């Protein structure tokens, strides 16, 4: 537990330093999902150390809201998929760490390009179908933004997954209630996402504090126990955008904006180095 907390703090530092260096990127959603991805990769997923694209015999993860690439890259590097020093190349020319994740540059840990929103759930379902054909009992995880659910392709995929009994998938929605132009309730209110998933035939697990490590562990363990039950599983993860940095919380302002030098200093002071900066 302490270890996961420390790792999360280090991941936060990575996120902040990555976006600060190139003065671009998406810190808000990245910080909000730091605990989740740290827990997923280090506590929940049954995965192999060595990266193979086909992922036979291991759990797989797909990031659909690719703009939170900073947290994804940090967690992958800290899990050993590539050298943490490569985080220094985020968004630079000739880097494998593109602004949005891609397989194009061959970065270990990435299985699909994402960034243009709404496509990840379909891809995750395809990977889940392949696992079924291969008699592979491992699970597919995916993460999606709540604003991202405004993309219609999601609902094609949500309808398909329950109709076809895709029960080896756990799709997590990051419910931070914010998107670029403001609160999701202001931009395009979506009503009850829980009711929508349930009426589409999914099992819904709620994690009310998606920035609490123990709550995430409990919720994801529960979600895992509900797989192989003829129904797809959705986790509604309530998070705080910008979590862990006081001036980035309670606002959508840091969705896609990097901190300046003074802001970085303040943010890092709130998150002291733990397992070591890259």
């Amino acid at each position: 537990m302490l270890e996961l907390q420390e790792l999360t703090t280090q991941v936060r530092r990575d996120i902040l330093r990555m976006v600060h260096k190139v003065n671009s990127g998406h810190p808000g959603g990245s910080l909000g999902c730091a605990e989740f991805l740290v827990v997923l990769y280090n506590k929940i997923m049954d995965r192999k150390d060595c990266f193979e694209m086909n992922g036979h015999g291991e759990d797989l993860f797909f990031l659909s809201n690719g703009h939170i690439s900073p947290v994804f890259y940090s967690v992958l590097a800290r899990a050993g998929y590539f050298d943490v020093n490569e985080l220094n190349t985020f968004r630079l020319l000739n880097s494998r760490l593109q602004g949005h994740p891609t397989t194009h540059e061959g970065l270990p840990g990435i299985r699909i390009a994402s960034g243009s929103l709404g496509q990840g759930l379909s891809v995750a379902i395809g990977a889940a179908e392949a696992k079924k054909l291969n008699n592979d009992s491992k699970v597919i995880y995916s993460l999606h933004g709540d604003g991202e659910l405004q993309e219609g392709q999601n609902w094609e995929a949500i309808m398909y997954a329950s109709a076809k009994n895709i029960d080896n998938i756990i799709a997590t929605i990051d419910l931070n209630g914010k998107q670029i132009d403001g609160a999701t309730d202001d931009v395009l209110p979506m009503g009850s996402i829980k009711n929508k998933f349930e009426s589409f035939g999914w099992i819904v697990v709620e994690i009310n504090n998606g920035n609490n490590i123990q709550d995430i562990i409990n919720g994801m363990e529960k979600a895992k126990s509900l797989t192989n039950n003829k129904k797809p599983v959705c986790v509604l993860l309530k998070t705080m955008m910008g979590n862990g940095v006081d001036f980035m919380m309670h606002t959508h302002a840091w969705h896609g904006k990097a901190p300046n030098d003074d802001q970085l200093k303040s943010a890092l002071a709130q998150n002291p180095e733990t397992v070591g900066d890259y």
Partner: protein
Amino acid sequence: MKKYTYTEKKDTRSGFGAGLAELGRTNPNVVALCADLIGSLKMNEFIDENPERFFQIGIAEANMMGIAAGLTIGGKIPFTGTFANFSTGRVYDQIRQSIAYSNKNVKICASHAGLTLGEDGATHQILEDIGLMKMLPGMVVINTCDYNQTKAATIAIADYKGPVYLRFGRPSVPVFTPEDQVFEIGKAINLTNGSDVTIVATGHLVWEALKASEILLERGISAEVINIHTIKPLDKNSILKSVKKTGCLVSAEEHNHLGGLGESISRILSLEHPTPQEFVATNDTFGESGTPAQLMEKYGLNADSIVKKVEKVLKRKK
């Protein structure tokens, strides 16, 4: 000049269905997806024999492309089936990001391409799909000319690793290529040897080009007919070799002249061997309802049109 004949007419989509069925028997990794057009795509045989390897997606083409991309990750070779319009323009961003940019081994199989879809009209006809697909980095683009070639191409693309766009059509057209042909991606086929003009044709226009070459022969014009089934990568050596002999070229395709095969040929010619070229293609227009034959005549996509363009390009020849 070699003369081509046929004993029967068949639709190219049935060639796809037959090729897919054969793959079902020979390659356990091949899976098929369809967006509510099984009968139109002739996928029944594969589905009957391999129900566990078929995915009926429903009318949700975007989801189909994403699921296909995901299936490749587990080592599968997905063949998606729907009309050309819904295989390309409708799902361009899904193909771009989840398939082409992600370099996924998906075979996008597109029926009812071009005007010859006929009576359904312009909402279902597409004359822009070759352009859309050839612009995507890494995408192979194939447009087959008859039943046998479509079957052979379907089987061949399963052995190629990477995204492929395979375009074919609805109407019954002459079967004139050999049943036992080996399909080589990116390799043009010289159908007739000629010395006065090169006619490069793809898809349904290949048979029209052969008919045109016979009309031209009666007028004392010797045409070299080349079948380009692979528009990308383009077999530029075959084209250059021919125009160095003939000195002029007519391209023929069931597609807009913007973005089509002819444009790809023009680029090669202007870079390496500037040569007069005329285009048999639609002229930046949508289609409309009508029978396939009526449409091909109205929009200038038949043997007569090819003959006219040949006469025109011959006058431009120095």
